[in-house]
């Protein structure tokens, strides 16, 4: 660690604070907007599919960019989730299996072998 560890360059700090400002804007902006207007049933129906739609929109390309190890691990998470409904189990199983599947795919064998 250099003695510059605590240095704060004013222009760097300015960019960071601008980044923080636009991020806060995005985080509060959506709910601010929908709090301003009275939502009709129709709009509310649209809003109600948002959580799942966002999850799928985020997940789809992410998994598509992965390979068989990620797909298999995703299937493990899904399976464990369905059986146990315990998110912690599902996450642990997913992470362990992605490491194992990647090792398999790389041809190095299972780490535990």
């Amino acid at each position, binding site marked *: 660690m250099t003695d510059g560890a605590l240095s704060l360059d004013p222009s760097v700090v300015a960019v960071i604070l601008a980044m923080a400002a636009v991020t806060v804007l995005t985080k509060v902006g959506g709910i601010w907007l929908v709090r301003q207007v009275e939502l009709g049933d129709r709009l509310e129906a*649209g809003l109600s599919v*948002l959580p799942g739609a966002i*999850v799928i929109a985020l997940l*789809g390309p992410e998994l598509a960019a992965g390979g068989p190890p990620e797909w298999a691990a995703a299937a493990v998470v899904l399976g464990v989730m369905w059986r146990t409904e315990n998110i912690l189990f599902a996450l642990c199983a997913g992470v362990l299996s992605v490491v194992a599947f990647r090792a398999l795919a790389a041809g190095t064998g299972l780490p535990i072998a």
Partner: protein
Amino acid sequence: MDLDSEPGESSDDLERPSRTDEDARDGGEGLDPATAVDSGAELEREVGPGPGPGSDPDPDPDPAHITFGRDGLRAGFLNCLPVALGVGGYGIAFGVLASQVGLSVAEAALMSGTVLAGASQIVAVELWADPLPAATIVFTVFAINLRYSLMGAALQPWFERLSPAKVYGSLYFMADENWALTMRDLRAGNARGAFLLGSGIAIWLFWVGATILGAVAGELVGDPTRYGFDFILAAVFVALAAELWEGRSTLVPWVVALGTAVVAAEFLPGRWYILLGGLVAAAVEVIRYDD
């Protein structure tokens, strides 16, 4: 402050015939929406953000009982700890990356503490160069994080009775992971408004702490893919998808979101595809809605 003496329980549970776990699992493919993942199915009728056709928005029992107390704060914090640990793995990677492009430990920590949006921060430091391309960086961060607007809006049905200070204060701490956990908790009918804040604080602590560690340690830590940390976000979202599945009614919006996102990811830069996928699915639902 604490009205939720029986988290996870509701009067509606008592009125419904009880089902066994097997019923719920076997019927997962969904002829009947009530046979989806059972914790979700149990409560979808009452806590689903959109009141069904013909129902009055007012006597929506659950969001009305939203609380904002220490209970939710604590539950959020504890539930998020394992996930925050994974976020910490990423924070270390970010800290290493930031130190490599010349940010000081203090600057990296400041960024993590104030911006608190992992993907956009990693992209930002990748754009870091000597004459600082400030406008490019700030705009890119904005574009990457625009998805948070949709995520925040999705919380509105539960948050509408909370004061602006609580809502906006909590949203400051919103990240992908704890938004996912919070949606899950709210949909389970717990109505703990402080869950987002509690889980966000866990994320913040690990993210900032790990950033400092990473920035100090420099290159000591290898890449997070070695330990599968990079898969945690995907795993959280797969788990969440399993719970959000409500049977056939979910199919159309999800297929629309998936198709839009995969195509958009191909042709658009950054993370516009998340926003677009969510928006198009919601728009299609608004059009399809028949009253």
